[in-house]
């Protein structure tokens, strides 16, 4: 690892998060509950531990191995699964996730980050004026919904192509019909085998 790289990363993350928190008028209130708490985060693939410290204004980033309120250690693959709370126990049992200390601190940090809703339109309006900021925001929103729509349409199209045109995969109804037929066959076979047993006996 490049020397001083963790420091560059921490510095950048800290600046970014401070900006985002400053843009969310509600964030300060929620941060008050976290103030003074420390959460450390270690990825198995990387030999460094990132420590998050909550203050009244922001969340600070550091890199060290000192004891903290709650320490999480996991690997890159299971990072995605962390968002789903129902998976946590399974991950801990499978030994891919280790949590030491107060698990509530980790939950509070995660809750805070998920709730963070920066009012970037307000921040943007300071540079561009309200009208243009609204326009940009509207544009981005419509772009977002357009992309969502297109994604849905693409999914629909692919399904139809695979099921109806190319007939690579059965439709749900066909599948259900098939499994019913299998069940029927199963019971018929069962019946016959019973009868054969009776005849033999």
């Amino acid at each position, binding site marked *: 690892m490049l*020397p*001083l790289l963790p420091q560059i990363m*921490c*510095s950048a993350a800290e600046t970014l998060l401070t900006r985002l928190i400053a843009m969310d008028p509600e964030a300060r209130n929620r941060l008050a509950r976290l103030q003074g708490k420390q959460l450390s985060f270690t990825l198995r693939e990387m030999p460094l531990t990132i420590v998050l410290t909550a*203050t*009244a204004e922001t969340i*600070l980033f550091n*890199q060290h*191995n000192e004891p903290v309120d709650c320490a999480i250690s996991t690997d890159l693959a299971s990072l995605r699964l962390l968002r789903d709370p129902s998976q946590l126990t399974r991950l801990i049992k499978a030994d891919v996730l280790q949590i030491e200390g107060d698990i509530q601190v980790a939950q509070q940090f995660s809750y805070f980050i998920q709730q963070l809703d920066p009012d970037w339109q307000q921040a943007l309006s300071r540079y561009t004026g309200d009208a243009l900021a609204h326009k940009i925001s509207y544009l981005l929103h419509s772009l977002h919904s357009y992309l969502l729509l297109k994604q849905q349409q693409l999914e629909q199209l692919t399904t139809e192509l695979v099921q109806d045109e190319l007939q690579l995969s059965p439709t749900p109804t066909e599948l259900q019909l098939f499994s019913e037929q299998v069940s029927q066959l199963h019971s018929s076979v069962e019946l016959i085998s019973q009868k054969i047993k009776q005849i033999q006996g």
Partner: protein
Amino acid sequence: MTEPDHNTTHFGFKTIPAEKKVSLVADVFHSVAAKYDIMNDVMSMGIHRLWKRFTIDCSGVRPGQQVLDLAGGTGDITALFSKRVGPTGKVVLADINASMLQVGRDKLRDLGLVNNIEFVQANAEALPFADNTFDIITIGFGLRNVTDKDAALRSMFRVLKPGGRLLVLEFSKPEQQWLSKLYDIYSFKVLPTMGQLIANDKESYQYLAESIRMHPDQDTLKSMMEQAGFAEVSYHNLTGGIVALHRGYKF
């Protein structure tokens, strides 16, 4: 580093009477105080911010701790610590030079950091604090300007709490020969010229370059810290040894 005589000391490459060093160093810093921050950014190309961040990382600071930032100058390290110790902790910014302290006080105030910071004008050789006061002491780019370094280290050891740690961030000796050559050209040719252009003060930056060469190297400083009583002393070279961070514990 051998002192030439009992009553003399180094001031850059010059040898001067020991009692004069304080006032000569004071002159240098009175002269550079106003342009200190911008010169730091230009001279180190901004890397000094990362060195200071690395120091904070090595301190393992926690909310509620008491921190002493010695020779804190314009308060860069104090600002980082102040946010991290929070309202329950305290940071004392100490510097022997009133001009530097004034610049630091103004800067921290402008940053909105006031609640948990105290300002003290103090000599590192005789710190005006009770025994076992601080969890962490840092001295960033200050130790080489102290006249009696051993006395300063002993004084720091005294005010540190048992279990506390001292961090000395200071210019040191580059590990590689080629880097050392490049660094010599940079600091004796380029630096004084930059000092002349930006701060209109060539002598002060000439002194800076010279004082760095006269400062004890990594292992000498390590043994000096051990002699002052610090345990588990270790150092990290940063940027090829141009700067070294020494860490020692009091048990």
